[in-house]
C-alpha cells in the first residue's frame, strides 16, 4: 500500500434510500490493523453503510473522514468493495477478468497468477467465468482485492457461498491485510473469527420519512 490510512471515521451520518431514512446519526471509527464488524438484522442498513463508505451513496448529513492516505484521492478511491455482485463477465476467462480489474484500478501489486493461487483458482485460469460455481465466482471476485492493494477493504458478507476451507483462506488473507496495517469494515450476520475486532451493531431499520 502506497499510502497507508490510519483511521476511517464516520460522524453523525444520516442517509435516506427510496424516501426512507436508513441510517440516522451514525458515528463509528475504524482504525488500521483492526476489523470493524457491522452486524444487524436483515434490512438494518449494513450494506447501505458499506456502499456509503464506497462513495456509491451520498449521505444527507454527516461526514466521512480518513486520516492518512493519499490527499489526491477520494475516500472511495482508498477502498475495495467486495459485495454480493461479482462484476465478472461470463465471456471472459478467469485470467482476463482479473487482469482487467488490475489494469483498471491502476498500480498493480502482484501478478494475476499469484492472486488466483491465493484463492485456489490457479488451475482454472483459462476457463470462461461462465463455468464457475457460486463459490468459485466469489473467490475470483475476492482475488480482485489482491491484485491492486488498497488500504480499506469493505466486505459485505464476505464468507457467503464459501465452503469451510475457502472461508479459512479468506480469513487468513484478511488477517494478513490487517497485519500490514490495512483497515477492514465487514458486514455480516455470522460470527467472523477475525483476530482484532471492533463491533458496530446497527439497530433495527429506522423507519420513517426522509426529511
Amino acid at each position, binding site marked *: 500500500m502506497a499510502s497507508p490510512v490510519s483511521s476511517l471515521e464516520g460522524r453523525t451520518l444520516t442517509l435516506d434510500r*427510496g424516501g426512507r431514512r436508513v441510517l440516522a446519526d451514525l458515528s463509528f471509527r475504524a482504525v488500521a490493523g483492526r476489523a470493524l464488524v457491522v452486524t444487524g438484522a436483515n*434490512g438494518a442498513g449494513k450494506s447501505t453503510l458499506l456502499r456509503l463508505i464506497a462513495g456509491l451513496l451520498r449521505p444527507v448529513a454527516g461526514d466521512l473522514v480518513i486520516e492518512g492516505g493519499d490527499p489526491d484521492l477520494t475516500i472511495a478511491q482508498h477502498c475495495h468493495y467486495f459485495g454480493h455482485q461479482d462484476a465478472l463477465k461470463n465471456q471472459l476467462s478467469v485470467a482476463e477478468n482479473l487482469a482487467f480489474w488490475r489494469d483498471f484500478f491502476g498500480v498493480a501489486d502482484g501478478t494475476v497468477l499469484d492472486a488466483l493461487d491465493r484463492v485456489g483458482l490457479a488451475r482454472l485460469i483459462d476457463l470462461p467465468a461462465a463455468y464457475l460455481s457460486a463459490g468459485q465466482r466469489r473467490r475470483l471476485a475476492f482475488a480482485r482485492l489482491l491484485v491492486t492493494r488498497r488500504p480499506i477493504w469493505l466486505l459485505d458478507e464476505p464468507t457467503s457461498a464459501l465452503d469451510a476451507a475457502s472461508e479459512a483462506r479468506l480469513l487468513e488473507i484478511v488477517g494478513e491485510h490487517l497485519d500490514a496495517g490495512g483497515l477492514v469494515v465487514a458486514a455480516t450476520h455470522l460470527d467472523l473469527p477475525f483476530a482484532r475486532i471492533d463491533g458496530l451493531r446497527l439497530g433495527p*431499520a429506522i423507519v420513517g420519512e426522509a426529511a
Partner: protein
Amino acid sequence: MRLIDYANPTRFLGLVAKILPWLAGATIVTFAVGLWLVFFRAPADYQQGETVKIMYIHVPFAWLSMFCYMTMAASALGTLVWRHPLADVSAKCAAPIGAAFTFLALATGSLWGKPMWGTWWVWDARLTSVLVLFIMYLGLIALQETIEDPLRAAKASAVLTLVGVVNIPIIKFSVDWWNTLHQPASVFRMGGSTIDASMLVPLLIMAVAFSLLFVWIHLMAMRNEIIRRRIRTMRMIEAAGAE
C-alpha cells in the same frame, strides 16, 4: 417567512391552499374578459376572415408549450444543482400539462392550416420542431412513469430535460436551414410585422389567461404529487414495520 422556507413540502401545501382560490378566480375572470373580446370585439382579418379567431388560442398554446419546457428545465437545474426537494415535483407535474398544451398547439395549428394552407400537415420547420417538442414531452413522461423510485426518476428526467434544452434551438435552426434546401417555407406572416392593437390586446389577455390556467393546474398537480409521495413512503414504512 423567507423564500427558502417554501422548500418544506408541508409549508408549500399550506401556501398552495391559501393561493388556489384567488388563482381560480383570477383565471376565470381573465378568461371571461379575453373570450368576450375575442368573440365580440376583435375584428376579422382582411386576409383570413374569421379563422383568425383560432390565433387567440393557438398562439398562447404555442407560447406555453415552450414556456412550460423552460419551467421544467429550471426545475431540472433545481433538482441536480441545488437538490431542492420541490424541484422534481414541479418538473414532473409540468410535463403532462406541457404535453397537453403542445398537443393543442399542434391541433389548433392543423385546424387553422387546413383552411389557410389547404393541408393539415406539412413537414415544415416550425411544425416539425413543435412535433419534436411534443415527442420529448411524451418521452419525459414515459421515463418518469417507468422508473419506480421517484428520486431516481427525477434525476434521470432532469438530465434528459437539460439535454433537450440544448437541442431545442438546434432543432429550430437546423430545420430552417434544411427547409430552404427543398421547398420554400410556408410559414404564415401577419400582414406586416406588428399586429394591430385590436387583435394584440385580446391575444395578450388570452395569453395571460392561459398562463394563469397553467399555474393553477400545475399547483394542484404538485399538491397531488406531494401527497402521492407521502403515501408511497407510508406504504414502505408499513412494509418495513411488518417484518
